[in-house]
């Protein structure tokens, strides 16, 4: 049997994952390669070579529209034929092949949702523009993720649906291990995994906190592909371990509770045979040989990515290894709310809606042809009043950024009020298409506790963890608020800043204490925000309002709101009123 590598090597793991994917590209959903660079280029090249020669591989631009992605009415063919003609999109065109998504971290939820449905159904269903149809679309997905920060990731709806997650960042070597010389077997010739194998995978998934049944099914398929690749008709223990390492470990949300990896060194297989011999000689009941389950779990634990290990503990409650990033991915849908088509001339940015124009013209065709006489050419007669333009309701959603002074000097109790206000804002966020973000600054720096979201579930979690105490690094808090405002604005949304502080800075931008420097840094940061003309409000949360916070508001060119005895509801009402005024202005 193949022993799991003593030290998991990310490069050889990624290569194995690529090979397994190439063995069963449609059954394993896809592969997610994170980190741009020569390593990934080499892997993609190897993948292309390993795939069957006639398998189509299509690149998909992130800006693809529904017409091209799922298909729809073929307008010119329909006009020509005088009957509705269905045109396929990229998904159906790639049936039986691979879709390659470059810059997958920037894919919108809209595109991701449609690809996800195709992966589930192995078909696309079209109900668009007066035409309906279903076309087979069995695809494998190659996600090329150039993301750097933790928040820049492909949509969870896609990463969930691909078997392999490979993080290539940090791999420096291009020293690929040799290809195995064994002749691969067809997947279908491999026997199904037995109960011990299934138990080992299911047990490992549970121990690592992998909830998704999809991951489990992928792991079973990956084990089979691993056996096929090695030319074996039966799944060996090593295949199970490989599957657990490549499919389950990257999705880990926790480490096993009872057993630590040290108890189960990865060189287990040799020991196993020895111990089995021992057991045979001595009493049957004494030292249990390590079960396959333990061996697989140990292999998987050794492969759990280090960043997950770091997150474990402070972030256990999170939904999945890559969960929780969906909230801020709504940007692409916010070009405005489509209101259907209205009569009008396509100019000044209004786009012609061809289908609706044709619909408007259609009933008159017989009449118009008669008007023009018998010799008139056969063509569609479209007149000015038929023209329809697409209508969007311009409503860029607002993002309320709470920057909360969580230092010791601000009454700690006020944090509870800020929390309450945020929850109240979120409770009505859906109606207003609004999002909420939360920054806390205390001690030596600022921290983004809640990226823009409208999920109450996520917000609750972040708020529960809001710490308090320490100095007041006002400049750091303001800087982060400005960066977030810029990000929000770049995504076409309107930031509104709610700064809860008493204005008394005592930690400078570099994290060092000192009132004078801290104040100066704070002023400088505030001026930069003022230059951006972000609207907002400074809420003075000290029990007796002081000049510092009012001064800060003046520099920021924001409203000043002393709320010495505020409660959550009052705070929320005040912010709501000011924000409505700012948006209306």
């Amino acid at each position: 049997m193949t022993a799991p590598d003593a030290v998991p090597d990310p490069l050889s793991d990624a290569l194995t994952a690529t090979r397994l994917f190439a063995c069963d590209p449609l059954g394993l959903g896809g592969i997610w390669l994170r980190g741009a660079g020569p390593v990934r280029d080499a892997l993609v090249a190897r993948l292309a070579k390993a795939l069957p020669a006639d398998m189509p591989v299509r690149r998909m631009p992130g800006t693809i529209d529904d017409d091209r992605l799922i298909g729809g009415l073929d307008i010119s063919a329909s006009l020509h034929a005088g009957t509705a003609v269905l045109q396929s999109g990229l998904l159906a065109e790639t049936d039986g092949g691979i879709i390659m998504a470059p810059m997958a971290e920037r894919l919108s939820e809209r595109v991701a949702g449609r690809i996800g449905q195709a992966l589930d159904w192995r078909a696309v269903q079209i109900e668009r523009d007066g035409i309906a149809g279903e076309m087979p679309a069995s695809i494998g997905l190659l996600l090329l993720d150039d993301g750097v920060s933790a928040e820049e990731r492909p949509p969870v709806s896609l990463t969930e649906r691909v078997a392999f997650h490979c993080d290539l960042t940090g791999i420096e070597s291009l020293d690929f291990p040799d290809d195995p010389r064994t002749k691969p077997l067809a997947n279908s010739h491999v026997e199904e995994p037995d109960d011990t194998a299934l138990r080992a995978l299911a047990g490992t998934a549970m121990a690592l906190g992998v909830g998704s049944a999809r991951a489990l099914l992928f792991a079973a398929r990956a084990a089979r592909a691993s056996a096929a690749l090695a030319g074996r008709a039966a799944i060996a223990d090593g295949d199970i371990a490989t599957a657990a390492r490549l499919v389950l470990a990257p999705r880990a949300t926790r480490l096993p509770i009872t057993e630590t990896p040290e108890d189960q060194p990865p060189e287990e297989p040799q020991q196993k045979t020895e111990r089995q011999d021992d057991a045979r000689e001595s009493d049957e009941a004494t030292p249990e040989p390590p079960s396959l389950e333990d061996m697989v779990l140990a292999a998987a634990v050794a492969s759990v990515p280090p960043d997950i290990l770091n997150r474990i503990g402070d972030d256990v409650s999170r939904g999945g290894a890559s969960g929780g990033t969906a909230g801020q991915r709504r940007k692409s849908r916010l070009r405005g709310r489509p209101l259907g088509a209205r009569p009008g001339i396509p100019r000044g940015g209004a786009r012609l809606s061809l289908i609706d124009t044709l619909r408007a013209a259609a009933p008159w065709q017989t009449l118009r042809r008669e008007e023009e006489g018998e010799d008139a050419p056969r063509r569609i007669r479209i007149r000015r009043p038929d023209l329809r333009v697409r209508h969007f309701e311009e409503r860029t959603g607002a993002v309320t950024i709470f920057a909360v002074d969580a230092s010791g000097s601000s009454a700690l109790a006020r944090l509870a009020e800020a929390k309450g206000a945020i929850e109240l804002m979120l409770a009505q966020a859906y109606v207003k298409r609004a999002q909420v973000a939360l920054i806390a600054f205390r001690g030596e720096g600022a921290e983004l506790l809640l990226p823009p979201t409208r999920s109450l579930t996520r917000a609750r979690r972040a708020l529960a963890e809001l710490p308090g105490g320490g100095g007041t690094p006002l400049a750091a808090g303001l800087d982060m608020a400005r960066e977030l405002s810029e990000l929000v604005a770049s995504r076409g949304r309107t930031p509104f800043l709610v700064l809860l502080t008493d204005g008394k800075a005592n930690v400078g931008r570099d994290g060092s204490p000192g009132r004078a420097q801290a104040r100066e840094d704070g002023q400088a940061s505030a001026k930069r925000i003022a230059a951006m003309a972000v609207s907002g409000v400074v809420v003075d949360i000290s029990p007796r309002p002081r000049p510092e916070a009012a001064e800060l508001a003046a520099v920021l060119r924001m409203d000043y709101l002393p709320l010495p005895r505020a409660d959550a509801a009052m705070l929320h009402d005040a912010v709501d009123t000011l924000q409505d005024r700012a948006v209306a202005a």
Partner: protein
Amino acid sequence: MTAFPFSAIVGQDEMKRALLISAVDPRIGGVMVFGDRGTGKSTAARALSTLLPPMRIVEGSRFNADPEHRDDYPEELTSKRVRRVPVPFVDLPLGATEDRVVGALDLERALGRGEKAFEPGLLARAHRGFLYIDEINLLEDHLVDLLLDVAASGENLVEREGLSVRHPARFVLIGSGNPEEGELRPQLLDRFGLSVEVKTPDDIEQRIEIMRRCDARERSPEAFAEEWEAADAKILRQIARGQKAVDKIVVPDAILTDAAELCVAVGADGLRGELTLMRASKALAALDGKRKVTRAHLIAVAPMALRHRLRRDVLDETGSTARIERAIEELFG
């Protein structure tokens, strides 16, 4: 691929029960399924489509016309014959455009023959059946508004392209979504009679069974379907019996009192909660082949009927389900 057999779904008892209840009594108003990815939400919803007893429509009707109410439909129904057809289960694909949902001018007839005719949309196709929306959080807002309006009125009103058409559109809405990806609007949530939360089973034997069955199905879909055919047919008969019996189920006064007390105790807003609780209890009793609703029925359906109707308390972190269970414990011990 054909739908996964309903009876072959491992675990997920609450979700399955909610779907069956909604099939027995469509007036309850559908099911919203919340859960993380990969928990089998869509599998179960789509599996339901094969379990629905057939319905009678006027032959040739494009609006699923009910033979008892022929005149309600905007079409000329010349045929006197009645056909038995499967109850429609319409899957709303992402990217569906408004014209396909509500119906629009028939482009083909308009272009080809210059005729002004209405082409019914998905709402007409779903009439008297089910409309399933996967990933409801991803649905465009204007479509959500539209569906809400139709679901509330039971009628689809089309005023576009010079057409003025109205037709009945009563359907059971089934939705699935992931709460991590944003809240659902309360108005939308309220439209759903029942709501369930699903997780992958924690039990290792169940998880192994999931892998085993998916593998078996992958290898031979036909053999797998055959293996579960009898079990599914039994559920279909159970639903058919339940549909016939549900209106005759007796609700003792004591149970009515229980239901009212429970709603007050958990702070479920409005009358809708109490009404749904009663209807769901009756449907469950009908499914069980009982004549009378018992407290056990009420307790079994209380979480799914009420959990999405509780007033949100910003200070109380306790989940809705736990609050309902606590109230049940306190009231009925």
